[in-house]
C-alpha cells in the first residue's frame, strides 16, 4: 500500500530535527556517574603559574604567587587540611604605582608561604566594571539574572588555598596576609571534604570573629 501519503510521511520524517537540547542537569549527572565509576578523573587546576599571576596582578592590581598546586598535592604524603582564604574588599582606585607595590607585597607573601608548603593555589577575580557584574543562574530555568550594580558579594576579589594544621593556623596565616593592610577582610573556610566548615573572619580592625 505504498502511495503518495507514504512519500509525504517519509519526507516529513526526514525533516524532523536531528538534535534536541538535553536537560540542563544531565551533563552533570552523567559526569558524576562516570566519576563514581572511576572512569573520569576530576579536573585538577592547572595550578598557579607565577607568570600568570603576576600578569593577573598587573591587570587587577593584586598579585597571588605560588607554585604548582598539583605538584604540591601529589608530593605531600599526609597533606594537612586545606583552607580557603576568601579575600573581600580592600582599597580600590589605587594608582598604578600603588598597584605595583601592592602586587609585589601579595606576591612576596604568597611566594614565601608557598616555599614553606602553606600556600598551594589561588585566583584573583576581575575588578573591572564589567567583571563585577553578577550572573545568577538557576537550574531548570532559562533565565540568567545579571546584576550590573551588584552590592552583596561584589567585593569578593579572590582567594588563596592554603594548607594549615587547624583553623587557628589558617587564621594566623590570614592575619599575616597583606590584604588586611589595604583595608580588606579575609574569610577563612575549611575546604570540603573536610568536616563541616567553620567560618571565621580576619580583618585588621576587628580581629578574628
Amino acid at each position, binding site marked *: 500500500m505504498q502511495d503518495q*501519503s507514504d512519500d509525504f510521511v517519509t519526507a516529513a520524517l526526514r525533516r524532523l530535527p*536531528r538534535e534536541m537540547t538535553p536537560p540542563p542537569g544531565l551533563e552533570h549527572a*552523567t*559526569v558524576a556517574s562516570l566519576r563514581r565509576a572511576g*572512569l*573520569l*578523573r576530576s579536573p585538577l587546576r592547572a595550578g598557579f603559574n607565577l607568570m600568570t599571576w603576576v600578569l593577573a596582578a598587573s591587570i587587577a592590581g593584586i598579585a597571588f604567587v605560588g607554585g604548582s598546586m598539583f605538584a604540591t598535592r601529589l608530593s605531600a604524603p599526609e597533606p594537612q587540611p586545606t583552607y580557603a582564604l576568601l579575600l573581600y574588599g580592600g582599597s580600590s582606585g589605587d594608582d598604578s604605582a600603588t598597584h605595583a607595590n601592592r602586587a609585589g607585597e601579595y606576591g612576596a607573601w604568597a611566594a614565601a608561604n608557598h616555599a614553606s608548603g602553606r600556600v598551594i593555589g589561588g585566583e584573583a577575580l576581575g575588578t573591572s566594571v564589567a567583571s563585577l557584574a553578577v550572573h545568577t543562574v538557576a537550574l531548570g530555568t532559562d533565565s540568567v539574572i545579571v546584576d550590573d550594580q551588584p552590592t552583596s558579594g561584589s567585593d569578593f576579589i579572590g582567594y588563596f588555598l592554603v594548607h594549615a594544621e587547624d583553623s587557628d593556623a589558617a587564621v594566623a596565616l590570614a592575619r599575616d596576609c597583606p590584604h588586611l593592610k589595604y583595608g580588606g577582610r579575609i574569610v577563612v573556610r575549611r575546604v570540603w571534604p573536610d568536616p563541616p566548615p567553620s567560618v571565621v573572619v580576619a580583618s585588621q580592625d576587628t580581629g578574628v570573629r
Partner: protein
Amino acid sequence: MLSDGDADRRDVRAVSANGDEAAFRSLYRRHTPALYAFACRMMGGESPDVDDVVQDAWLRAVRAIGEFGWRSSLRTWLSSIVLNCCRERWREKIQPSSDGLDSAAPTADLNLRLDLEAAVAALPPGYRAVLILHDVEGYTHDEIAERLGMQPGTSKSQLFHARRALRNRLSGDAPSATAST
C-alpha cells in the same frame, strides 16, 4: 579549527588514556543533542527514562572507548549503544504480545495532537525502532538488521507496517498497531 571527526579522535584518546573530564565534556556536548533526540524518539518522548538511557549509554561508551576501532563514525557507534540501552528498557517494561508487537503501546491523544512526533511516539517499539532508524536516521535495512538482530527482509516488512500504522494515526484512523508482520 578541528573538524568534528578530528576533535572526536583527540577527545577519545584523552578520555581513553587519562579519563580526561574536559575531553569527555567536549564529546558529551558534541554528541548528546543528537543522541538525546534519538533516545527520545526511541522511548516515545521525553521522560526520566530517556535521561537514564543517555546516561547509561555514556557510561558504557566510556567503559569501552579504548576498544573503539573507528570502523564507523563515533556518532554511529554511540547511537548503537543508545539503541541497545533503549531495547533493554523496553524488555524490562514491556511483555511483548505473541506477534512480537507491543499491545500496550502508548496512545497519543491524536484528536488534540496530530503531530508527527506524537504519532511516532505512539507506535509500538518494534515499529518505532525500524521507522526511526530508516526514515529519520538514514540507516539501510542491512544496518538495521544487524543492529536489531533480524533479517533485512524483516526490517523492510516492519518499515512497511510502521509507515502504514503511522499514516493511520496521522489520518485519525484507529491504530493498527496490532497488525501482524
